[in-house]
């Protein structure tokens, strides 16, 4: 009896540490049942949770419920495994510690940033959009620019950069939609937000140099990079003779950010 809660509390831990091995819920249940074959189900704790959770979260039964169900009847856990495979994450994310969640999101952001920097990168990574990356980039750009900007204007610069990045990307997206482009709103905002990454990098480099002849090529390079990375996603949006009209606001958006990156701290 004292063993069973221990094994149950261990099972989500197992889940998190080696993610790859326990994609299949069967394996978890086999492990637990083989380790503790005489496991009995507590009527107050687990029994209740089987009823409630299996209905409310039909998609993803917790490892706890899979173990208990599996001993009684295998058929339910089969349906559970189907539900689990449709989720983007192989494991249950409800029981994991917050640190694991944050780390996984950060890793996703890092993967997307890599793809933006790689000119031949896979654009489909950005289809799974998130706004964390753009937020981090936007905040770091706003902080860099406002710290290096003219004294006394740091608050207005921070606000300005924040507004330009978010409203700008939203307006550029709406513009593309209005012109008849087949783009998804948040996906496009996410892409545009990620594509300011080269400019953020140059803004960081510009802290250390105020030489115009170093800055000009760097900013132009970053601007071209941002534009190239973002335009390639617009190319799929079915704008035959209006591509210029859709791309021009994009150019304006990155140019004004690039200009701010260029002049800050000169």
């Amino acid at each position, binding site marked *: 009896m004292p063993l069973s809660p221990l094994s149950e509390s261990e099972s989500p831990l197992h889940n998190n540490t080696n993610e790859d091995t326990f994609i299949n819920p069967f394996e978890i249940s086999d492990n637990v049942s083989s380790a503790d074959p005489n496991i009995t189900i507590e009527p107050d704790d687990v029994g209740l949770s089987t009823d409630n959770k299996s209905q409310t979260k039909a998609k993803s039964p917790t490892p706890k419920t899979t173990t208990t169900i599996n001993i009684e009847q295998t058929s339910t856990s089969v349906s559970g495994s189907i539900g689990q495979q449709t989720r983007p994450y192989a494991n249950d994310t409800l029981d994991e510690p917050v640190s694991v969640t944050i780390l996984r999101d950060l890793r996703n952001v890092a993967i997307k940033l890599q793809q933006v920097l790689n000119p031949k990168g896979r654009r489909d990574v950005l289809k799974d959009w998130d706004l964390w990356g753009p937020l981090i980039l936007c905040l770091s750009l706003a902080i860099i620019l406002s710290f290096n900007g*003219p004294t006394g*204007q740091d608050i207005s610069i921070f606000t*300005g950069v924040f507004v330009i990045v978010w409203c700008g990307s939203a307006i550029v997206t709406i513009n593309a939609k*209005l012109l008849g482009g087949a783009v998804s709103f948040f996906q496009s905002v996410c892409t545009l937000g990620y594509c300011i990454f080269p400019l953020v990098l140059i803004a960081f480099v510009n802290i250390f140099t105020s030489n115009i002849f170093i800055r000009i090529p760097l900013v132009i390079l970053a601007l071209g990079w941002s534009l190239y990375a973002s335009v390639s996603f617009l190319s799929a949006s079915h704008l035959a003779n209006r591509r210029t009209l859709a791309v*021009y606001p994009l150019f304006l958006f990155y140019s*004004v950010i690039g*200009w701010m990156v260029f002049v800050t701290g*000169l």
Partner: protein
Amino acid sequence: MSREEYSVVVEMDDEPTRREELEFQDFSSTSGVGGKISKDKQASSNNDGFNNASFFDSNQSIRNESQGGSYPLWSIEYYARYFDVDTTQVLERASKSLFPKDNFVETVGSNPDLYGPFWIPTTVIFLLFVTATIAKFISDKDSPYDFIILSFGFAAIYTYSFGMPFIVWGALKYFGCSPSLLDTIGLYGYSLTIWLPISIINIIPSDTVRWALVIVGFAISGFFITRNLYPIISRADSKTSRLLLIFVLAAHAAFALLLKFKFFSYQWKPKSD
């Protein structure tokens, strides 16, 4: 010119049809016929059941049926009809505002767009920010850039290019001239095109050149606006409506002076050591 417009007509026609295929909407009766009208109407007479269509641009009638007609007011797709322009059309309209020979409202026809009236003022704002900063660096090398230029530019230019059309439209409505709001917005939006080259040339640190250019800019855009508003104003019965032209010109002069003193002056205080 007419050949260009014709090619545009053909281009746009396959856009709505593709969209309908995607959305499974039943436009089979309207668009099937409509696709033909736009081409037939050029050649044949208008004695079929579509007499009304001859009052409009053939594009417009079809577009309203297929694009905007079925969408509610709050959806993005509803406003897509105001962005139904090509690159060549936008460039043509912008150049018309630089050389205001023809009637702009007539050239736009029944296809007024909001693309130009939004992106031309936005471009002017950003370009003024860039050129004003460059001119500032020329006049005083050590001074940092001024972010206030950008926020001030946003406030001033958006207010003028979207606020004034509403005032003018309201006044015209009051005098009973039956104006079109989109036309007035388009008029004011496209009239700002002249400030793009002027703001670039005004980097030259000479006050005489700047004054001359501001006067040229005021003259061209002011002539463009009044020239196109006059036919609408003269629809009114009362002669007092002519006063509106004076008001429009006065407001435009005020706007030009604002640009001169805020962006083309660069009277920066020398840095105190």
